[in-house]
């Protein structure tokens, strides 16, 4: 990486980002290159249509939601640090817990991964997955093969199983509890982001 020092200077707050997300500088550079290639008009930030230009995402049933996950609360631009922070969720969880207590703050920690997943369901960000939201997800992922009433049944059942305080919606804690047996670390990690 001959040009690494100069490239690193291109990335604002590189050290800060590395500390917060846990990415190595090599990774950060790679992601920066990717960011720049996505940013076709070279504006320094990404907008939804930049993401939509990726063909694969269009075919993805929840592509839209993922794109939305990058844009936090109403903004329609993503700068590099937000980009990296979101992607950092997918780093494999570091197993060596004997590091400093900042383990929990890393985006790649299990709780943060779950939070990300939760937000994929909870589009209106009210902190709860309502039946309607669950239905939408189901419809997106199962729509063609299953009839409407079956979808509703499934949604109903899923809520029944997870909803502990009987408020007919799944809060983040209930979500976390119902997925406690799942190996989130493997399921929500992409290896090259290590």
């Amino acid at each position, binding site marked *: 990486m001959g040009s690494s020092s100069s490239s690193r200077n291109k990335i604002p707050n590189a050290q800060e980002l590395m500390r917060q997300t846990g990415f190595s500088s090599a990774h950060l550079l790679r*992601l920066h290159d*990717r960011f720049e*290639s*996505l940013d076709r008009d070279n504006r320094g930030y990404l907008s939804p249509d930049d*993401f939509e230009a*990726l063909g*694969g*995402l269009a075919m*993805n*049933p*929840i*592509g839209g939601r*993922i794109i939305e996950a990058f844009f936090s609360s109403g903004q329609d631009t993503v700068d590099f640090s937000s980009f990296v922070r979101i*992607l950092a969720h*997918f780093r*494999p969880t570091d*197993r060596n817990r004997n590091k400093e207590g900042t383990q929990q703050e890393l985006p790649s920690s299990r709780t943060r991964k779950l939070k990300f*997943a939760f937000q*994929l*369901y909870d589009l209106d960000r009210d902190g709860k997955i309502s039946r309607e939201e669950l239905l939408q*997800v*189901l419809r997106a*992922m*199962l729509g063609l*093969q*299953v*009839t*409407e*009433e*079956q979808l*509703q*049944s*499934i949604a*109903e*059942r*899923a809520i*029944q*199983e*997870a909803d502990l305080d009987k408020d007919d919606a*799944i809060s983040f804690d209930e*979500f976390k509890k*119902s*997925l406690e*047996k*799942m*190996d989130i*670390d*493997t*399921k*929500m*990690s*992409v*290896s*090259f*982001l290590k």
Partner: protein
Amino acid sequence: MNSAIWFFNFVVRLSESSHSNESQHGHSSNITGIPIISFKWHHVETPYLVAFWVLVSFLGKLVIEANHHVTSVIPESALLICFGFILGGMIWAADKVQTFRLTPTVFFFYLLPQVILDAGYHMPNKLFFTNLGGILVHAVIGTCWNAASLGLSLWGCQMGGAMGDLDIGLLQYLLFGSLMAAVDPVAVIAVFEQVHVNDVLFIMVFGESLLNDGVTVVLFNVFDAFVSLGGPKIDAAEIIKGIVSFFVVAFGGSLVGLVFGLLISLLTRCTKNIQIIEPGFIFVLGYLSYLTAEMLSLSAILSIVFCGMCCQKYINANMDENSVQTVRYAMKAFANGSETIIFVFLGISAIDKVIWVWNTGFILLTLLFVLVYRFIGVFFLTWILNRYRLVPLEFVDQVIMSYGGLRGAVAYGLAVMLDENKIKEKNLMVCTTLIVVYFTVILQGITMKPLVMWLKVKRAAVTEVSLLEKLTNKMFNHTLVAIEDISGQIGHNYMRSKWKYFEENWMSWILMKPSARKKQDQVFDVFHQLNLKDAMEYVTEGERRGSLEFVRNENSIIDFKKKSESESFDINNANMSNDHGAMSTTRDPIPSVSLEMHEQIMKAVREAEAINAHHLLDQHLYKSRKQHRHRFSRSHFDINRDEKEVQEIFQRTMRNRLKSFTSAKMGVKPPKTIVKHTQKEQQQKMPNGKSMDKAKTSYSGDEGLYDFSFVHPAGIENPAFMPDLDPMDLLQIPPWLGESELDSSMVALSHRAQVDLPRTPSNLRRLAPLRISTRSTDSFTLENIPDTQQMDSDQLQPPPPPPRPPRDDGYV
């Protein structure tokens, strides 16, 4: 027990005497008169012995499994071997020669294939392919390392004089090493099945044990050829040929298996009309794949494993449920049976003076090296692997992986196949193999469980999979693909999604029946399973609560699994159950929205509680039945039918109570009407887009009508219930009204009222509830009158739009 031993001895004597004195079992030339009965041992000898040994092995298993405390400490395989020792001892005592032993032919052709087919068929594919890299590394490189290291070390030790006067060439040592190196799938299954370690660990060991056959076959054949050729003839060309043959054997074997797997899948697509022997195809074709690979000198185990793995998904989808169960159970039976016989014979084969050659150095060193090199190999390879793995294998897992490198019958079979002309010390090798096998299976088997517990290895999670988990799982998969897209790299998940795409659109299209293809969704599958589980729970619950006779009776009818003859319901029920039978065979596996109904009913129940305790009781009673019923229903059609029946029972009991009430307000009929309508309304409540349910409604309605009039004690001909009523009429009475009218069933309907009602079906039907409500002392229903008309107008639109339920509930 004693008699068993005597019989056993008898048969043994029989067989050995048959070997020696043939003239006794006379040929027909010596007869002097007509034999009334003659003893024809020769006639049945072979099959009799085979069957007899199978029986003995199974009896041994029976004895062993009688006490669970023993089997939880000592694995069954070890006990079976000991049982074999005892048997061998008995035969030896009787014969002074070992007439029975595990021959390679019997083992490799008749005992091993089923075990491996079972392993392949029940293999968790996803887990396997996720870890395929690691498994392959261990299987190929690990086995080669084991073989080479063992052979070389032993040779070195011989050179160093540790083994006395032994003189075995290096090549022979390498040959011995190659047969000793392979981890045995049968032993692994036998030991690990009790221990329940976590999935990844199990699949690594098990997958390795299956895939290393490719390597073992090649190594064994190559070194066997080398031994035949002799040392000087081995040059680079031969070595290269050896390496090439590895690839050919391994991939060729897998390919053969794949082809047969696809063949099976295609066949099951067309076997709808011969469902009874459908399972046979799998066994026959599986076995043929094994034999074909063997014929082409490819890896037979790889072939049958891939055959099983490839076809499992498609045959489970294509075949009828019964056939799938048959295959599953038959395969397990064969596999388990084979395993039992293998271990028993492994024990018996030991008790044979002829083969025993003892060389302390050789045997002990072999044992030592086998263990040590296994540990070294596993740790080293895993260290390399962990740098590329997403989830590294932990230290304790590695320990168990090394310790779980059990040798078994395959090694013994290969050892017996050695040519004693080429290898003078064959017997020594056979003995050593046996001792290593015993050591690993018995000792390592016994200590495996304590070791696992002591090291606190992660155990297999008892997966109670929830819908949310499955759903989120799927979502994660999609998410990962998206992230890979965004970050612009082709990763694991991209490949997997591409494969899924290919598989869903091409392979499934060819290999799966169209009807099966539609049901191929995991979340849906979980939903279906959960529904079935609920259904089963309700059956047991209902049967437990003896007082709810309705529930129990209805369960006995609704339970599709047993087409039961309902006892107290005469013809009606006979019709019902027949139709149920018919319904269940026309397998409509897509369950309808029973759970949502349940929820709404529950809501309705909650609201009712606030109103009137009197109503409350009725409604609870009524609703709980509904709740069960809906859980069971597989289509709306059935719901109606069941409801009819329950209504009948209900009506009957009510009628008994009615006799004590002599109020002239109403007769029995309106409740019936209401009830019937309620059922229709129930159906309406369910958001159903299926128009065919309407048609079914009418049909079932007719039947119900017929039923009611049939059982009416007063014998009043009730034209209301004649089949010519169209469903719309029936639908016009809102359910809430119907339900609330239940209490009015306490009151007897006057004959006039009964007769009057049906005169002008459409009008009066609407009026009927009104009239009832005015007469009723029930103010509750009075309130609801204005809404009746509104409801009716709603109901006149066919089919009613789904979001009606909330309204209904509000009035209950």
